[in-house]
């Protein structure tokens, strides 16, 4: 990726230095100059993508320097920094070719976006050519690993749907990697330079949901001291990932449908209509069709979300991926924990390959993490695995439904952890509220 060159011109040392550090941390190549003459000397020998000029400087003003820079390099983006009193001069500067101006002190978010947007404009043409030529190169998140035919099919579907703006519904058991698939779709879309914002619908308390999703204005309720952007606003330009979509209340289903259809909403306590350009990816491990029949999920929302469906098979149906995943997680945790375990013994690998993995990839990841923590030798042994030497578990019946498997797995995890909700939720990879909801849904009780 191109490293942009920025020149900061300001006679105040503190301002020069803080902007230097600020942009340096952002990854830019930064230089500073304390006055216009030094800045012009730098322009004689170097090329800068963007110059940030103080309006008021001894000798040549920022406005005069702007004109000189534009003579030397008309492509250089110039942003002026000004005190509030000199705003009229800044407006004059805009007429003379400055990209924009900021008033001191500037909000970090505003400054960052301004510089990024300005540089994005420069890079768009180059990026356009690059994207066309690298269309076939697919970016896959590190953790999304698999060599089985089933996973190859998933990768193929991701590459098909990612470049479009189509709404995607990802289905699969808990722990199969629905969020990673959502991320892969996002990373391979034209929205990849903007964030993917995850909303865990199951974890949101109804009372906070509105403010969380749509944001709020300062003073909109007691304690709202500052304006706050909601998830939909944060996803502007990017993707919103609605995880556990089957868990949302009927009231929120109506709100969601409206926002997804119009891409417009109000912040809580606000009058302005906010527009946000986002792509929707939803995920669930529930049978939404049944929920629609039972009247628990709105049919119109279901059809709005279920445009392109991607079903991730459970790990037990793609056993070929188990060794690949196990070795991937082994490397990951050895790096993170600085341990020198080189591999997994044949016996332990056979055990892993035969295990049923009700908790799917997440359970395998947890098992390997635990094994790396306790492992002492150069290889992971069967005794390092959290199951000890218990007989291999198998799926009792191939006719189990998705909810049966989920209920059974949750119950087993709760029992293993003496009904410690926090610990069980952590192992299951869900939050405590969701776990309580699932316990209620399946009528599980501590015996």
């Amino acid at each position, binding site marked *: 990726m191109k490293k942009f060159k920025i020149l900061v011109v300001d006679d105040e040392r*503190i301002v020069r230095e803080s902007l230097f550090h600020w942009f340096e941390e952002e990854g830019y190549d930064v230089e500073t100059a304390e006055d216009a003459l030094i800045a012009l000397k730098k322009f004689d020998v170097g090329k800068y993508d963007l110059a940030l000029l103080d309006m008021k400087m001894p000798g040549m003003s920022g406005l005069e320097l702007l004109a000189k820079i534009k003579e030397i390099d008309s492509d250089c983006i110039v942003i002026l920094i000004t005190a509030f009193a000199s705003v009229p001069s800044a407006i004059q500067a805009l007429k003379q070719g400055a990209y924009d101006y900021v008033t001191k002190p500037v909000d970090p978010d505003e*400054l960052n976006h301004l510089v990024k947007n300005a540089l994005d404009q420069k890079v768009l043409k180059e990026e356009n050519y690059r994207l066309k030529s690298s269309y076939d190169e697919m970016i896959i998140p590190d953790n999304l690993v698999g060599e089985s035919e089933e996973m190859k099919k998933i990768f193929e579907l991701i590459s098909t749907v990612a470049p479009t703006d189509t709404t995607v519904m990802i289905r699969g058991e808990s722990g199969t990697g629905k969020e990673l698939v959502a991320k892969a779709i996002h990373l391979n879309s034209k929205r990849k330079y903007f964030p993917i914002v995850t909303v865990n619908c199951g974890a949101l308390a109804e009372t906070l949901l509105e403010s969380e999703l749509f944001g709020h204005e300062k003073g909109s309720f007691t304690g709202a001291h500052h304006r706050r952007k909601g998830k939909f606003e944060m996803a502007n330009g990017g993707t919103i990932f609605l995880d556990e979509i089957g868990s949302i209340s009927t009231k929120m289903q109506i709100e969601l449908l409206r926002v997804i259809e119009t891409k417009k909403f109000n912040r809580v306590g606000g009058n302005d209509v906010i527009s946000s350009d986002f792509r929707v990816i939803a995920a669930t491990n529930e049978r939404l069709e049944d929920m629609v029949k039972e009247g628990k999920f709105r049919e119109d929302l279901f059809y709005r979300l279920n445009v392109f469906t991607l079903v991730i098979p459970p790990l037990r149906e793609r056993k070929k991926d188990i060794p690949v995943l196990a070795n991937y997680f082994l490397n990951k945790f050895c790096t*993170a*924990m600085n341990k020198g375990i080189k591999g997994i013994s044949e016996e332990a690998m056979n055990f892993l390959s035969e295990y049923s993995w009700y908790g799917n990839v997440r359970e395998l990841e947890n098992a390997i993490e635990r094994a790396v923590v306790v492992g002492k030798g150069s290889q992971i042994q069967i005794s390092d695995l959290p199951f000890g030497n218990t007989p291999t578990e198998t799926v009792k019946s191939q006719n189990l439904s998705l909810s049966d498997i989920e209920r059974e797995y949750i119950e087993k995890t709760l029992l293993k952890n003496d009904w410690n909700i926090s610990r069980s939720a952590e192992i299951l990879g869900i939050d405590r509220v969701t776990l309580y909801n699932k316990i209620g849904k399946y009528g599980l009780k501590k015996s």
Partner: protein
Amino acid sequence: MKIYIAPVKFSNKTLLNDVLLHLKQKSEYHTEEIFLDIKISGLYSHERKQYYSTGFIEQAIKLTEKYEGKVLILTEVDLYVPVLTFLFGEAQLGGKHSLVSVCRLHEEFYSGQGNYNMLLERTLKEIYHELGHNFGLRHCNDWDCVMHSSNGIEEVDIKGNYFCNSCLKNLI
């Protein structure tokens, strides 16, 4: 390598203890609390009602010559540099010193409702972020990485709580 945490104008003992405990458990580095006699009254701007961030670092440099490792100052006061309205923290890129303020990490600041777990998570994210700069990391484009830039609390919440594999490799 050691990580020294220096609370300065920091009264939340629970948060400090949890931060230290987390760093000791999660990080391979030895973590220790130290006292630094940083005079903050001279760093206060009456006009802005905030404290000059770089001033903390400047004083810390003089006070920590004997410490081998990274020194992170943890404070409750609101920070600024003249050209920006506020800062969550500041660090010397590839250097020894960094600073994190929890002032704007409190959920009360935004919604009026306290949330300790959220505060702890945000604080740890900012600590890892600033220490990452100390270890030479710049901002990362991966939103799941703690080194993603965050200029607002929403972005602190969205970004990941640890380093991505790529940053982790560069860190080590």
